């Protein structure tokens, strides 16, 4: 605290500095707390005693004087001072501290609280300090403190100067006679209703030249209501109560309203009122009262009305209410007056009486109404165990198996219609009829094409392979939507038939796809049993004839699909798999609640460049709590536990789920069918247009391909072979489907085994949007060799694939691997870029690629591109999914085989047929994009196929 000596004058010091410690001085013991004392400015001890002002200086130090007690004061004669007025003031008995600044009676002049500003004004304080220094008496600002502001406001002062007096109104003087000030009718707030009586009373003489000040206006009371009393409550005013002030304004709580004696006996004057304001029964008569009032009130029956209802007819002069009534009638014009004291402040009487509410009586209850409802238990046999059902049946005598007759919710529309006796609707019976002619035509076209194809293929495979191979044919592709493609349905039908009637079909049918609907399940089982017997029109027989066509077709479709899907598995195959211990889960799946809108609409909007509402979807999205915290934003949904998009449970087997899935598939399926199946194929554009939806990759890829095709006329040959191989593949896939066991065996020992493969449609269906196989045959030729070399070390050696290979999407990895180089080569730049090897064949990539690395870094890998299988839609049935996965796996394996095979072939440089078929197999992956200039007949194709096989 003590500052250094040299710069002492620069520092401000606070408090008393400690005494400098002497070297030789022994350390003093610190004084313990209990021994420490406080002394006041006069050196007297101060002690805490708890007296008036804060506790110090009480006790004998100040009052008693000595430790021993009172000291008798020495007698002083006051004779001389007799004349002086002995006036004891309170200050005589106060202590010194009470006169100090914070005492009870400070003697210095201080500003009272009224004039102290809330906030200390620093600038003014400073100014005052300065001025006090320069004042004649330094340190004193007496004058300033003596001046106190006037109590009344400046407005009042001004008014006074203008001649206004208290109690008058403000404004120019009026000529009218001044009203009596002490009128007993007080008006609150609002204006008086026009009263003619006042004018009529003004019959006194009013001199012309006398003016009066205007009436004073009662200011509107703006005091807020801050208590919990009722409106208009006023407490008992003690002044009025005790002094008996003007009783008019005071509500006398203690007189009965019915005590009308005072009203009646009008002779009693105000002066004769009792002195005390409080009177009435219950308060006795005081000793000072002059009168002896009858304090013991006797209530008489005459005080009460004895008749219910309105007033008595006639003049109503009798009865106690009469005078009052008369009086009121007289003052009818100023009706408000009757309510004086009853109207709350700020209120007036309504000019219009309130309309009475009409109350309707409650409806009469029927006599036999019972207020308790009895719920009949309805039990669905399908949902309860048979035991329970039986028990219920015995107890109730019936089961809800025939409950459809009871509950209308279980009826379908036909049944309800029949019950109601309505005629059937006249509108279109099937969805197909709703389609416009163009779409119908297109569908027909597709149908025809596929029909044609299938028939030829079937013919072919019948001749070449055993029919027992056919039952693992893919079903997914066949699952046609119910747009009433009858031939297709019949085709599927045939397939289902072949599946179920095959000798390997197991009789044990574990799967019940329509378990929810027992009757439907029964129909389905009937259908399956028909199938097993080889009945051709199993469907027609088993379906319910009473249903509408739409329902029937839907059911037909479902049955077909189910039959194909849940076909009896091979004994060998089924032995390899065990059934899941737990049911997949309940019959519902989680689906995002808000889905994006239709893509087709958006595409149209984008084409028209109408971005905005049409292309935008706004979806509720829940960020994670922690994420919000990290981003320093409040959680937008504080209460919710959802993260991401809100999900809803949806029925797994819902028709709508199937429908939506099917729609996608149908579209993707339509493309290959129409393009490969000998459709006019005038140009690829038309075919893709026919499909209605192109894969996004087509956009980028089509043009170069066309260009290439144009540039190199020899491509037509490949294109031709593409067609050939396409159908060949299809044929083959149709032909031979062996079970997995067979296949693995084959894979091990037979090199040139016939390839077993589902038809193309399956792949198309699986890799629906993956038509970005970019390879052109030229690229294949250009880079085929190196690609092989690269692929060789990496490829797991599997059985070589057969010569003819379909355009399996995974093969596109192989094809696309070399694609960047070929692209570059085509462009004519970086010719040597083709020497850059592609490194990882198994590395998958999709989406926009990365540019080629260029020559800079030869060891760096060039981008590889491969399609990822499209995400399986959740709604699809699990087993279906499994099935598909299985297929996929197979397929991948195969494609690898194929690679290897192709490689081998190329090394051998065997035959042209080989090459061409291989090339075509690869180039076929273009889908329908390559212009087909030729057509190879089926016979020729078959011949070629056989040829190949013979060679192997």
């Amino acid at each position, binding site marked *: 605290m003590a500052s250094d000596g040299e710069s002492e004058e620069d520092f401000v010091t606070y408090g008393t500095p400690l005494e400098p410690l002497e070297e030789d001085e022994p350390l003093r013991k610190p004084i313990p707390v209990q021994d420490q004392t406080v002394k006041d400015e006069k050196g007297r001890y101060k002690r805490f005693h708890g007296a008036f002002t804060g506790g110090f200086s009480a006790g004998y130090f100040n009052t008693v004087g000595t430790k021993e007690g009172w000291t008798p004061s020495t007698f002083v004669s006051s004779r001389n001072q007799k004349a002086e007025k002995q006036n004891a003031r309170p200050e005589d008995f106060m202590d010194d501290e009470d006169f100090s600044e914070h005492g009870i009676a400070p003697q210095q002049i201080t500003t009272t609280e009224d004039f102290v500003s809330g906030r200390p004004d620093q600038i003014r304080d400073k100014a005052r300090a300065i001025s006090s220094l320069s004042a004649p008496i330094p340190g004193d600002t007496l004058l300033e403190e003596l001046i106190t502001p006037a109590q009344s406001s400046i407005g009042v002062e001004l008014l006074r100067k203008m001649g206004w007096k208290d109690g008058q109104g403000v404004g120019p003087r009026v000529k009218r006679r001044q009203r009596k000030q002490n009128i007993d009718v007080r008006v609150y707030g609002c204006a008086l209703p026009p009263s003619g009586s006042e004018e009529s009373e003004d019959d006194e003489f009013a001199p012309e030249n006398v003016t009066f000040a205007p009436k004073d206006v009662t200011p509107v009371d703006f005091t807020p209501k801050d208590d919990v009393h009722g409106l208009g409550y006023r407490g008992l005013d003690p002044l009025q109560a005790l002094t008996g002030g003007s009783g008019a304004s005071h509500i006398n709580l203690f007189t009965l309203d019915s005590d009308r004696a005072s009203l009646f006996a009008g002779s009693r004057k105000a002066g004769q009122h009792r002195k005390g304001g409080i009177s009435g029964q219950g308060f006795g008569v005081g000793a000072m009262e002059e009168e002896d009032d009858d304090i013991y009130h006797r209530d008489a029956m005459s005080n009460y009305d004895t008749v219910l209802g309105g007033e008595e007819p006639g003049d109503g002069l009798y009865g106690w209410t009469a005078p009052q009534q008369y009086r009121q009638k007289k003052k009818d014009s100023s009706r408000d007056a009757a309510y004086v004291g009853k109207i709350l402040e700020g209120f007036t009487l309504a000019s219009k009486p309130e309309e009475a509410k009409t109350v309707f009586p409650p409806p009469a209850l029927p006599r036999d109404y019972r207020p308790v409802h009895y719920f009949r238990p309805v039990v669905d046999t399908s949902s309860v165990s048979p035991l329970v059902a039986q028990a219920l049946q015995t107890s109730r005598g019936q089961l809800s198996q025939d409950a459809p007759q009871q509950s209308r919710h279980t009826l379908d529309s036909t049944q309800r219609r029949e019950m109601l006796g309505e005629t059937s609707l006249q509108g279109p019976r099937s969805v197909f009829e709703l389609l416009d002619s163009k779409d119908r035509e297109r569908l027909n076209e597709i149908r025809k094409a596929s029909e044609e194809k299938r028939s030829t293929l079937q013919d072919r495979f019948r001749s070449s392979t055993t029919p027992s191979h056919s039952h693992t044919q893919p079903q997914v592709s066949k699952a046609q939507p119910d747009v009433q493609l009858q031939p297709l349905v019949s085709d599927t039908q045939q397939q289902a038939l072949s599946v179920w009637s095959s000798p390997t079909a197991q009789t044990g049918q574990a799967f019940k796809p329509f378990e929810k609907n027992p009757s439907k399940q029964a129909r389905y089982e009937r259908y399956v049993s028909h199938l097993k017997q080889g009945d051709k029109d199993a469907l027609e027989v088993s379906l319910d004839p009473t249903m509408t066509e739409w329902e029937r077709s839907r059911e037909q479709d479902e049955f077909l699909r189910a039959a194909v899907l849940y076909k009896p598995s091979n004994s060998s195959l089924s032995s390899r798999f065990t059934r899941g211990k737990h049911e997949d889960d309940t019959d519902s799946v989680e689906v995002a609640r808000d889905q994006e809108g239709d893509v087709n609409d958006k595409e149209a909007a984008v084409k028209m460049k109408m971005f905005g509402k049409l292309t935008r979807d706004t979806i509720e999205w829940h960020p994670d709590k922690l994420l919000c915290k990290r981003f320093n934003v409040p959680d*937008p949904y504080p209460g919710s536990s959802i993260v991401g998009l809100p999900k809803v449970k949806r029925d797994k087997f819902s028709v709508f789920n199937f429908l939506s899935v099917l729609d996608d598939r149908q579209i993707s399926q339509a493309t290959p069918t129409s393009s490969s199946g000998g459709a006019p194929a005038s140009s690829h554009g038309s075919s893709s247009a026919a499909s209605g939806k192109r894969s996004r990759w087509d956009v980028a890829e089509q043009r170069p391909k066309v260009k290439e095709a144009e540039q190199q006329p020899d491509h037509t040959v490949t294109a031709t072979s593409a067609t050939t191989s396409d159908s060949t593949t299809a044929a083959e896939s149709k032909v031979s489907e062996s079970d997995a066991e067979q296949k693995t065996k084959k894979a091990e020992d037979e090199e040139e085994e016939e390839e077993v493969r589902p038809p193309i449609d399956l792949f198309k269906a699986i890799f629906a949007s993956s038509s970005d196989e970019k390879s052109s045959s030229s690229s294949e030729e250009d880079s085929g060799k190196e690609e092989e070399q690269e692929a060789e070390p990496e490829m797991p050696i599997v059985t070589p694939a057969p010569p003819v290979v379909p355009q399996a999407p995974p093969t596109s990895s192989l094809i696309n691997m070399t694609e960047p180089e070929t692209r570059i080569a085509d462009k004519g730049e970086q010719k040597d870029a083709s020497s850059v090897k592609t490194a990882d064949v198994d590395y998958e990539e999709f989406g926009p690629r*990365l540019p080629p690395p260029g020559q800079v870094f030869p060891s*760096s890998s060039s981008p590889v591109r491969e399609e990822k299988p499209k995400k399986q839609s959740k709604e699809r049935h699990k087993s279906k999914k499994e099935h598909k996965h299985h297929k996929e796996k197979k397929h991948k394996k195969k494609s690898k085989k194929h690679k290897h095979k192709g490689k081998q072939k190329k090394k051998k440089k065997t035959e042209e047929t080989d090459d061409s078929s291989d090339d075509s197999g690869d180039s076929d992956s273009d889908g329908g994009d390559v212009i087909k200039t030729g057509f190879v007949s089926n016979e020729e194709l078959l011949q070629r196929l056989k040829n190949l096989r013979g060679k192997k």
Partner: protein
Amino acid sequence: MAFPEPRPQPDRLPQHLLRTVDCQQGAVRAVRFNADGNYLMTCGSDKSLKLWSASRGALLKTYTGHGYEVLDADGSYDNSQLCSCSADKTVVLWDVATGQVTRKLRGHAGRVNCIRFNEEATVMLSGSIDGTVRCWDTRSRKMEPIQKLDEARDGISSLKVVAHELLTGSVDGRVRRYDLRMGQLHVDFIGSPITCVCFSQDGQCTLSSSLDASVRLLDKNTGELLGEYTGHQNKDYKLDCCLSEKDTHVLSCSEDGHVYCWDLVEGSVTLKLPVGKAVVQSLSFHPTEPRLLTAMEGRVQIWGAEPEEMDTAE
């Protein structure tokens, strides 16, 4: 949306080549400025990430630890951390000074295309070819992401973060904007696979380039098309686009070896910057100055508004 007001003097565009840096790390997959524009990061296909001084073109540090080519990188606001993503499916958080891997996060099912820090570098957001955006907490040691945004139906090609908004571009042709404050997801359908998305500097617009060789400027709030910029080539590759430092121009890479620069309001090509013969892979604009980075093959070029006088290293 308020367009920037026309300026009296012609805009300064980065049209002079200041420096060419040969990165010696294979193809440069991405080049990025750091938060203040003083440093730049290059992502190489030789699995390395390099930090350079933007003014001198000197190599400051090489970060190795990725298992495959590095595809994107970002620097934290305080320059203390870097994050990068790679084709090895990992996301790595680096300590700038030591060059050590602070965290290596696995979880993506495919290669990770893009990565960004949020403003305070508390979260790393990575978009992958598996169609998810994962939000990684840089504060905790948890190896799982805070949240996985799997709304996209195809791979995420690009993402940007500004304040509380996350913009992602996906190969399914949609630009998604996640508004954390509002708890909403806005999906804009573009149709063609998105290669790059950007916020404008004023935060009112989004820029998206797609494989149909056009760059579109959309109103952020309504999704309306404010401008479309075409003329460049972009059909195959994932190329970057960006806005200039004052939102006056739109820039995009092109497959014909140029960087195209359009006037934002008029939509006309104001500058066609010849970078080289190959594809311009990546570009990055300086946050405050007219300075541009382009990456072609193994080289990074730095472009400025005025030619550098004395200390040009070439």
